């Protein structure tokens, strides 16, 4: 399945937006302008963008504590996201959710999630809903290697396989759960083998390669949409930064990190491929880089100028109607 120029530029724009958005957040937190627990997606852009390139607003995505990339890939407005992270009333969640709960149902983004593994059953339920309502839509659960050790992973995949739900389970294996290397806590090399327990189809993709993720996702979603059941897609990737902003990174080797950053950057890989293949011009990419920077600057300016939520918001949106 080939992508035309426009599609390629859209994909690049999304990856670049994620990269620049996260870099900007890093600066803002360092400058003390932003608070909370902030987990950046830098380095893993190809996974979210490669998968979401196949999704519409009606396909549901559930995410993790590291959710900005999934939001942007799913088309959530970055100005609303930025305002949310500033805790402003204009935030996409009125400033109530923050980084770990950023969401936009209008874009089929059911939310980042502060509870590791909790998004997996939520996506399973969205898949059940799609199947029962015969909408033809799919649900995608993004989660990490660490989350694959949660009971919710086991229970959800078993139910989905049992009911042949149209759910794609994307495990982003970035080699670490917080500070603990994956091989310390998972005795198998490929998390994809865990699909065996449920008689489920599985695939492995190079999570640093947009094109590989894109194609494996295409194959996986075909399977889901044909009604043949869920798929477990393992994307091998790497977290360029720390677990959270401020992580001193004492627990991993600088050499290892440098190698990934220098030789496996998904944006570099994408650019090299499309330029060599003559699919787009460098100018197009630089223009996008520039536009993205401007959009983000504007988002920051607008967010900083926006008001905080009124204190009455403390107890609104707890229930649908006025109950206590």
């Amino acid at each position, binding site marked *: 399945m080939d992508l035309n120029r426009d599609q390629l530029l859209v994909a690049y724009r999304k990856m670049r937006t994620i990269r620049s958005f996260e870099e900007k957040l890093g600066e803002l937190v360092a400058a003390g302008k932003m608070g909370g627990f902030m987990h950046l997606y830098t380095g893993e852009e190809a996974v979210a963008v490669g998968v979401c390139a196949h999704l519409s607003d009606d396909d549901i995505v559930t995410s993790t504590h590291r959710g900005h990339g999934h939001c942007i890939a799913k088309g959530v407005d970055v100005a609303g996201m930025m305002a949310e992270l500033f805790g402003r009333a204009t935030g996409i969640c009125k400033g109530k959710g923050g980084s770990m709960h950023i969401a936009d149902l209008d874009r089929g983004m059911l939310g980042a999630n502060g509870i590791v593994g909790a998004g997996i059953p939520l996506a399973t*339920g969205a898949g059940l809903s799609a199947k029962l309502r015969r909408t033809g839509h799919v649900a995608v659960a993004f989660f990490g290697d660490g989350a694959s050790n949660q009971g919710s992973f086991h229970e959800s995949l078993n139910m989905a396989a049992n009911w042949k739900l149209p759910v794609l389970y994307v495990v982003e294996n970035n080699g670490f759960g917080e500070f603990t290397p994956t091989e310390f806590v998972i005795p198998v090399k490929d998390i994809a083998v865990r699909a065996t327990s449920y008689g489920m189809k599985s695939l492995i993709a190079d999570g640093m390669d947009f094109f590989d993720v894109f194609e494996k996702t295409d194959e996986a979603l075909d399977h889901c949409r044909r009604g043949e059941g869920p798929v477990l897609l393992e994307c091998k990737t790497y977290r360029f930064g720390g677990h959270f902003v401020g992580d001193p990174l004492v627990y991993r080797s600088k050499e290892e990190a440098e190698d990934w950053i220098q030789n496996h950057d998904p944006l570099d890989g994408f650019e090299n491929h499309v330029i060599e293949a003559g699919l787009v011009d460098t100018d197009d990419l630089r223009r996008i880089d520039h536009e993205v920077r401007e959009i983000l600057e504007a988002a920051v300016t607008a967010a900083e100028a926006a008001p905080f939520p009124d204190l009455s918001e403390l107890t609104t949106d707890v229930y649908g109607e006025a109950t206590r």
Partner: protein
Amino acid sequence: MSRILTFGAAINEAIYIAMKSDPSVILMGEDVAGGGNRDGDGIDEMGGVLGTTKGLVKHFPDRVLDTPISEMGLMGTGVGAAATGMRPIVELMFMDFLGTCLDPLLNQASKLRYMLGGKARIPLTVRTVSGAGMQAAAQHSQSLYWITTGIPGLKTVIPSNPADAKGLLLAAIRDDDPVIFCEPKLVLGSKGEVPEGDYEIPIGKANLVREGGDVTLIGFGGTVSICLKAAKQLAAEDGIEADVLDLRSLQPLDEEAILATLSRTGRVVIVDESTPRCSIATDIAALCVDRGFDFLEAPVKRVTAPHGPVPFSRPLEQAYIPSAASVIAAVRAQG
């Protein structure tokens, strides 16, 4: 028109009406069909471990789903389906199993609307059997509604009779917020008049089931009949006429109804089947000594289970559960 139905039959009828009137309503749980929905000679379904949902899978074969024994996945799937267009009724076989699936309620269903700035709604109903009385012992007899009541974003209701069970369950299913619906073992086998057709009992309103004026007995679920028994005996033996208030809903709590009867009687005894700490009983006592302070004429007494697990041995279990005798003793202790 109304007939005599068991508590379970009233629940079954409510689910039938809800599923019939709304295709987005589904019923999920372990053995809710119970091996049903199959062809094969002599194969029938159980309809739940207590038979409460028997027959529903025949009416709605695609919407009554037997799930694996996976409460976390089951509950989380229910939340995900509720967030995306369905109105799931999830059966948690016994409330004690909350320990295996608390997160989807504590951190997802209850908070999604708020975390999303009001843009999500989670029309989820969780049906669960609570309380002691069947010698089911420490892990199948707990009254854990105090946990769901304490979690902002959840609603918790607990009917005391079949008619209320039907009306409250229909209201719960159609509520746009997650509602925990408790089915207390003490009344699960009871029978009573149940109106036919489709009706709802509003969530958040208590029901004054007896007017006395001398003292207020507050109960809910299985303790309402205990309060009524005690009230009868108090009238006969002590000439004390008791108000009996059936809370029906634990969250929202009908504070006005509680204060109204307190203002008449000045005396309150709360009868709660759960353990004593951080309970509905202490909540009501706290309300009385705050907003109701000026009405108080006597200590607010709480009749609850002891601070301990539910014992298996029959005599111990009977002593564990609040009784009319202990309620009467509490009233007399108020002097």
